[in-house]
């Protein structure tokens, strides 16, 4: 195994900052006289908040441990070998920091091969091997266990996944080849493709067992003891492990086809990882693991050197790290406590906000509106939603009682807001109305209360301008659906003070939202970029490119939905309104489409009808469109649109709308659902050469979301 040692040594030199995992070998006597046993514990020496990972040195350590137990097994000194993790963690796979540092195909190939070379030894020893999934297991952590002869899993295991495809990789240390051969292709597709592409959905211990990945399931309280007793029984022959026969017929091909359909619906062919994984799963049908492992190595190396994975890791770091430490947020210590929340308005948006504040803050929430009927309707909505949560078992009766008692509605703002610490308005999107509302609120609210606005396009500074205390006005812009999209744009008006801003960030954290600090600029971040993006598509259509062709030109990006489907979701009227606002601010770049105006005027809810099950241009809309005669190719359309987006982002960064391009991407990922493989958008614009073409430079330095120089 000296070649493995050499390989890993070389890789370790590339990654001096690795948090190294030790592979401790400890011997024990199995119960029931089942003999001497070697148990390998994977442990990085840190507590459970720093999960165990595999970098090159870690793999080398595991390799050395396998050297030791291999010898003992060959000599007959042990009857079996086990592998488990430190408390609460089994192992969570490859260390992504190490992957980011890889600069060339050969090094990338070496890391894939290094992992394989070490892991696959566990299936070729003179005694059986057992993996005990005691805690969180992901990626390479799952895979090291798949190479073992048997597996047990803890009922307390909270998270188990092969998240590689989610990031832009394939499970490349055996996962693609081994899993379908263990549990069948269909279940493997669920784990490798479906879960991964559904926001990296995690399995719990019980599901790991039910899927057939583990042979036995034990409770957390004495998981390792029971696993070792079970091991003894397996070795003694008193327990026989039976696994259902894997269907290698049509079911296998159907599973792969199902995986392709899932991938198409999620990434629309725009990111290669899922398809590479499916190719390997398809080829694994013949059970040739060696060929499968080689294919995994090649796929890993190709993907590691590709922009989609680099963008994926960049995106992952944005939502995992940057989202938790918002750039430019003031000192947390300045934040004031929020013990009561007021909501101005009791319409649908206001009611949704009331529900969110209620559930996350668990403080009194008061809704106000202009008549009792609206107020009652708002409170009724919140109560009904609480009942739904109760019905689903998400909350218990006590919690439901508590939450219902906390939400009230009044007509009189003075009565409702006199002791509120945080008051948010969600009234009609019209500056005069909002100014009027804030003036009324200021007259009755405590001096320290934050006045927040959920405006999507109006100026926060202007809204605050007529108040006695404009320093406490903050923009608090949620994205629809409020319960699902994580983004919250927190807008600092010209006079907003640090304490108010810190309070707003504190509330955002409690709401479990991804808060991004945004300057008070027209339409802030997401709506500005989306409007420019949609506006350019609309321009192209208005100039003469057929609707279908314009839409098709955007498909290679793999966005969650096509531009016109998104317009339908937002509502053409709102889309038109925002484009008008931005047109007033930036008339040279934002147009107001006469065709869109006509569609809105006709009262159409969208461009498409779905009578055939698929979106088709509504003939009534088609009749309304007045198009020119310039028909662009798909590539021309794409260039026009991406150039516009790159230009707009460049200008926004120049204006200081956000601190860095990273914040733009974080907004697009969490507020518009733009995909990881685009990195939001700036890594994609950089790697496709758009940024340089439009702005003369890239948005991100080499290596930030790309292969380092």
């Amino acid at each position, binding site marked *: 195994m000296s070649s493995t040692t050499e390989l890993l040594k070389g890789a370790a030199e590339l990654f001096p900052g690795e948090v190294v995992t*030790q592979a*401790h*070998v*400890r*011997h*024990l*006597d*199995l*119960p029931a006289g089942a003999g001497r*046993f070697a*148990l*390998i*514990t994977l*442990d990085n*020496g840190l507590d459970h908040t720093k999960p165990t990972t595999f970098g090159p040195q870690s793999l080398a350590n595991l390799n050395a441990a396998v050297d030791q137990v291999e010898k003992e097994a060959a000599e007959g000194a042990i009857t079996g070998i086990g592998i*488990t993790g*430190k*408390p609460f963690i089994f192992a969570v796979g490859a260390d992504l920091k190490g992957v980011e540092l890889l600069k060339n195909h050969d090094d990338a190939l070496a890391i894939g091969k290094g992992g394989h070379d070490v892991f696959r030894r566990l299936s070729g020893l003179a005694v059986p091997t057992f993996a005990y999934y005691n805690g969180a297991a992901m990626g390479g952590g799952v895979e090291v266990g798949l190479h073992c002869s048997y597996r047990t899993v803890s009922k307390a295991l909270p998270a188990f996944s092969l998240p590689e495809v989610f990031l832009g990789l394939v499970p490349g240390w055996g996962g693609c080849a081994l899993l379908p051969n263990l549990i069948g292709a269909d279940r493997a597709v669920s784990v490798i493709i479906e879960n991964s592409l559904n926001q990296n959905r995690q399995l719990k211990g019980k599901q790991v067992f039910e899927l057939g990945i583990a042979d036995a399931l034990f*409770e957390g*309280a*004495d998981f*390792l*003891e029971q696993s*070792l*007793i079970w091991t003894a029984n397996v070795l003694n022959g008193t327990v026989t492990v039976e696994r259902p026969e894997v269907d290698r017929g049509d079911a296998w091909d159907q599973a792969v086809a199902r995986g392709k359909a899932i991938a198409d619906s999620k990434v629309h062919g725009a990111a290669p990882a899922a398809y590479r994984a499916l190719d390997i799963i398809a080829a694994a049908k013949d059970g040739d693991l060696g060929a499968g492992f080689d294919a995994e190595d090649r796929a890993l190396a190709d993907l590691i050197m590709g922009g989609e994975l680099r963008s994926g890791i960049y995106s992952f770091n944005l939502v995992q790290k940057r989202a938790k430490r918002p750039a430019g947020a003031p000192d947390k210590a300045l934040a004031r406590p929020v013990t009561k929340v007021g909501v101005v308005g009791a319409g649908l948006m206001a009611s949704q906000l009331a529900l969110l504040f209620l559930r996350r803050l668990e403080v009194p929430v008061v809704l106000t509106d202009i008549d009792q009927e609206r107020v009652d309707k708002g409170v009724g909505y919140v109560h009904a939603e609480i009942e739904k949560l109760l019905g689903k078992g998400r909350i218990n009766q006590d919690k439901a009682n508590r939450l219902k008692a906390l939400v009230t509605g009044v007509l009189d703002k003075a009565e409702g807001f006199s002791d509120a610490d945080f008051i948010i308005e969600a009234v009609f999107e019209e500056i005069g109305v909002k100014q009027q509302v804030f003036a009324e609120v200021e007259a009755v609210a405590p001096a320290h209360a934050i006045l927040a606005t959920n405006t999507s396009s109006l100026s926060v500074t202007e809204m605050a301008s007529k108040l006695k205390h404009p320093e406490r006005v903050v923009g608090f812009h949620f994205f629809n659906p409020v319960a699902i999209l994580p983004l919250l744009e927190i807008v600092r008006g010209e006079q907003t003070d640090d304490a108010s801003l810190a309070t707003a960030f504190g509330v955002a954290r409690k709401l479990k939202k991804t808060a991004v600090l945004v300057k008070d600029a027209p339409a802030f971040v997401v709506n500005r970029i989306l409007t420019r993006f949609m506006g350019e598509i609309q321009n192209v259509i208005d100039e003469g490119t057929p609707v279908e062709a314009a839409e098709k030109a955007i498909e290679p990006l793999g966005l969650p939905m096509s531009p016109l489907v998104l317009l339908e979701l937002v509502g053409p009227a709102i889309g038109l309104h925002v484009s008008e606002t931005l047109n007033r601010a930036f008339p040279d770049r934002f147009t107001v489409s006469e065709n869109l105006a006509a569609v809105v005027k006709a009262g159409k809810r969208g461009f498409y009808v779905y009578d055939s099950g698929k979106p088709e241009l509504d003939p009534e809309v088609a009749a309304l469109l007045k198009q020119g005669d310039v028909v662009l190719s798909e590539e021309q359309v794409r260039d026009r649109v991406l150039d516009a987006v790159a230009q707009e982002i460049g200008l926004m960064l120049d204006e200081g709308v956000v601190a860095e391009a990273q914040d733009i991407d974080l907004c697009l990922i969490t507020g518009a659902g733009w995909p990881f493989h685009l990195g939001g958008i700036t890594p994609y614009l950089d790697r496709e050469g758009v940024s340089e073409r439009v702005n003369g430079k890239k948005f991100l330095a080499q290596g930030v979301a790309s292969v380092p120089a």
Partner: protein
Amino acid sequence: MPRTIRDVVFVDGVRTPFGKAGPKGIYHETRADDLVVKAIRELLRRNPALDPAKIDEVAIAATTQIGDQGLTLGRTAGILAGLPQSVPGYSIDRMCAGALTAVTSTAGSIAFGAYDVVVAGGVEHMGRHPMGEGVDPNPRFVSEKLVDESALFMGMTAENLHDRYPQITKLRADEYAVRSQEKAAKAYANGKIQQDLVPISVRRTNAEAGETGWGLVTADEPMRPGTTLESLAGLKTPFRAHGRVTAGNAAGLNDGATASLLAAEDVARELGLPVKMRLVSYAFAGVEPEVMGYGPIPSTEKALAKAGLSIGDIGLFEINEAFAVQVLAFLDHYGIADDDARVNQYGGAIAYGHPLASSGVRLMTQLARQFEEQPEVRYGLTTMCVGFGMGATVIWENPHFDKADGGNK
């Protein structure tokens, strides 16, 4: 209301292997509450006929009720063990007789009719909680000479007992200790002990203590098979210069936990639970704290009297071996030979260890096994000395007793 006293039976008992306290001990990185939890879970696994919801009480003893031995262990261990929330629990303390008292207290409540089925046990992690941790003795003990200053140091009380009984020499104590080790080794060889041990997974991160990573403990760590008189002769006498008490003729400082299942006999029969011993009587007694090792004598007198039995009726003895001298004082009192076959057939705490508040149930579990094997024996007793001058005795009847097979012993 009319009331009938019910018979109480010992259904089953298990324990963790015992460990040596201290940084190199097997349980150094294992929590005390986890030891109890695993013992309770093993008890339930071994008795699948028992619906856990039928457990009326969980009484867990610990001497030092701090940290992982605090927080009302009986309740918290029950929750951690996965018992239904409806099952209550409490903590109990009578130092070394903690688990024994957990048994007698809950047994009394069963007899009274308050409970049908209980879990009673104890734990002491003397590595994490050294004897005397956090104690704050009232200064009046000394200023008013309420107790001798040696009363707080168990080894010194053992030396005091040697003073009281000059015929109990260091040689007799060492000889007793060697026999205890021999009997324990034999019991292990015959598989008498392992059947009631629950394996415990243990983590080690300190390489100085041995191989690191997760391991599994399946045997008692303190045992020293092959101990000889010669090897004991040279040991230091840490409690007194030229004294008699050594690490060799006393129990060590240990970590471990025990748990037992008790039930009203009619309930046990109805549920199909095993009946391993039937409770006859129990008693506690106080003696001068500076000779606490004398305690088992008056407590046994009381327990025998309550049962209407004499010492001659007792066919098997399980005496906790905190110190050899304390066992020998008991045997001398009753005129029983040092090597009498009825006494500690599987060896005792000198070999296995004595994690204070856990030990009482170990004695019972071992007596129960001996009852099974010896149906000719009708009565047995478990007894132990207790800090601050106490003794504790429980007398048990063998449900397997067969008159045809033997006498009235």
